[in-house]
């Protein structure tokens, strides 16, 4: 039986030491037994490694950053669509999700399918609203305090024991062991991400993650738990292993059931020595370690494509535990002409 031909556009080809999920998503798609995917890589920068990896993308286009305005971004994608007939678009950056969610209907009208969380699902998991989120959906979260100004730093002593986590609204997290360090981190974080700065209770334990896919109806189509075995200085997993942990799966399914989560997600949890799980963050997209899930038996990107195309997908309930991934870096030799072509023409 010949495979169905489908064209997929993927962003996030920045496979650096803080990798975007684009390259692993493409690798996952290439393992599909049902589809023959034609891959359109969408890049923001001329040095995204995915551009230079042989046999990865069929065609690569440069697109403008969403900060230039969603319209410019979507116009460019529609222009690419005229040439390439994109069936499904899989965005992989946090910063671009807003633009794509907002323009979901417009993209669909021109025939580009996506499978993204709703604006409400996206916004209610904001970091500064985590306590409300935990309460609403019955998940333990670390105690936290939103700081609106430096004056409030003195309140930390009354509520928390040091160390505490000092976090930005969108990114960045620092551990602080005393008031002075909180002040330093507060300044760093607030100048970059604005207010509030979030002070989070430091929950001692092991960091574990779940990659999952919700169908938007409350069903969990895929879910694979993992523990990071080695973490880089940027806090990214450099090695990880799949776990057989029913409690983590139960938390994931319950959350997806209640929120009717649509699309890929990553839950970041801390498992304490007592065996309790605290939710520290939800990433509203497929994480960069997605290929481990594929290796363990759940091809999440492929399932996401099917959902985007409106096909029925049966929940994948099994996976192999004890599968590991080890990331490695690899130098590709590139001729200047290739760089010149992408830099001058915006496509290659």
């Amino acid at each position, binding site marked *: 039986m010949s495979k169905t031909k489908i064209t997929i556009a993927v962003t996030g080809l920045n496979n650096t030491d803080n990798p975007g999920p684009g390259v692993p998503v493409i690798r996952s798609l290439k393992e599909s037994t049902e589809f023959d995917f034609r891959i359109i890589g969408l*890049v*923001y*920068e*001329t*040095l995204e490694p995915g551009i230079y990896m042989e046999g990865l993308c069929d065609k690569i286009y*440069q*697109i*403008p*950053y*969403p*900060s*230039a*305005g*969603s*319209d*410019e971004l979507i*116009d*460019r994608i529609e*222009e690419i669509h005229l040439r390439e007939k994109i069936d499904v678009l899989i965005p992989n950056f946090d*910063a671009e999700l*807003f*633009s794509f969610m*907002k323009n979901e209907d417009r993209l669909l009208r021109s025939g580009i399918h996506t499978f993204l969380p709703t604006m409400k699902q996206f916004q209610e998991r904001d970091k500064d*609203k985590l306590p409300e989120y935990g309460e609403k959906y019955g998940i333990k979260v670390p105690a936290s305090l*939103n*700081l*609106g*100004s430096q004056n409030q730093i003195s309140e930390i002593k009354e509520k928390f024991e040091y160390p505490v986590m000092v976090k930005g609204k969108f990114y960045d997290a620092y551990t602080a062991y005393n008031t002075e360090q909180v002040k330093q981190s507060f300044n760093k974080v607030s100048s970059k991400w*604005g*207010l*509030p700065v979030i002070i989070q209770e430091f929950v001692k334990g092991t960091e574990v993650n779940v990659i999952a896919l919700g169908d938007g109806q409350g069903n969990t189509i895929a879910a694979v738990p993992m523990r990071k075995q080695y973490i880089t200085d940027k806090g990214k997993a450099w090695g990880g292993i799949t776990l057989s942990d029913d409690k983590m799966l139960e938390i994931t399914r319950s959350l997806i059931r209640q929120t009717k989560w649509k699309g890929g997600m990553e839950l970041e949890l801390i498992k304490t020595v007592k065996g309790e799980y605290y939710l520290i963050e939800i990433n509203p997209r497929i994480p960069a370690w997605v290929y481990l899930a594929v290796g363990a038996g759940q091809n999440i990107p492929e399932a996401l494509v099917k959902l985007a195309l409106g096909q029925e997908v049966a929940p994948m309930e099994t996976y192999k535990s004890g599968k590991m991934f080890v990331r490695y870096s690899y130098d590709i030799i590139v001729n200047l002409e290739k760089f010149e072509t992408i*830099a*001058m*023409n*915006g*496509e290659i």
Partner: protein
Amino acid sequence: MEKLKYDKPSISKINAGMPSKFGLPVKQKIISEIDGIKVSTLMEEYGSPLFVISEKTIRETHAEAKRAFETRYPKVQFAWSYKTNYLDAVCSIYHEEGSWAEVVSGFEFEKALSNGVHGSQILFNGPDKSKADLRMAIEHNACIHIDHFDELYLLIETSREMKMKARVAIRVNMDAGIYPIWDRFGFNYENGDAWNAINRIMLAESLELIGLHTHIGTYIMVQSAYAIAASKLANLYMAIHRKFDYWLKYIDLGGGFASKNTLKGAYMPGNETCPSFDDYAEAISNALISSEIPHENLPILFLETGRALIDDAGYLLTTVIANKRLNNGRRSMVIDAGVNLLFTSFWYNLGVYPTRELEHAEESTIYGPLCMNIDVIRDAIVFPQVKTGEQLVIERVGAYNITQSMQFITYRPNVILIDNDGKTQIIRKKESLETFKNSEINPKRN
């Protein structure tokens, strides 16, 4: 032989990490006319720089806000926020549209009266109300929004002396889930100060409590904060009814709605991320209607939104004075409008646009003409090549820029209004040496 069109030679470094804009179709927005009138015509007639206010945009935006609230809530009253823009011509349009006046000083109070606003339709806010101000407010039967206990006692004293009743509301501050919390204004909800103030007012024979006021902050991008604020005021409203068997007349949710300008540091452009009037109206109306308040006793909803109503109606037209390469090769240009006219440039990335199609956009810095280092209108903006004398338009400057503008080293420019019929007229004259001579006194020396 016909000569070819000349393009200025340009070179830009391809930054690994920064996407090159070349090869990508970059749409350059241009503003060549305002309400159908050519920018060049306006500048020819009224000079440069030039503030332009569009009556059409004011009325349309106001109608949009009114529709959003009135289709969701039975009783709505807007009050024009004078501090946002108190040019008489502007205020008069809002009053014509049915807005009351919201003032924060004796000066603004006098201005509202002189614009023909009835005293009972003036909401008097702010922390600075002198005894004379309070007397004026009591005489005119205004709604005095009390900010602190010292004001409360001064008001009791003043109204007793005058043997008149003062109509009052209190300003309440609260945790509405947004930062920073503006606890410097009004009485706090969570610690019970607001409730104490209410009880004190209810005991004062010369005061009549008629409403509750809050103003949770500025440029609020989450509409849910207003829902929290509305619910908290609704709680107080019901508590007053239960304890005193008394219904207040109104709940005033203040202003703070975001305009479509982009805040510095924001990742996405403001016009994409800001809630619409419908979003704000939905959140506020739902919170009030679903509160404990019985439907027949729902208070009038007062709104004092300023920025979101007027920002889009104001433009500043400006001219390029010079192009300059900085030492590091970065392109910069000097325009004839400085930060003294554009106070909001300190927190917004204001939209600056050419009036015609121009080419070769490059990241640039736009400086004002003041001989001061802080005079930066845009730190980084992708902008096409321009020649000196090129006319540019800065949009969304209707809020605060005129009221907060500062005279410095030169005269402040004309402000003109394009009325509904497309006619233009000066609504504030450009300053002249006379402006200063009139108020300065140079002591005679022997």
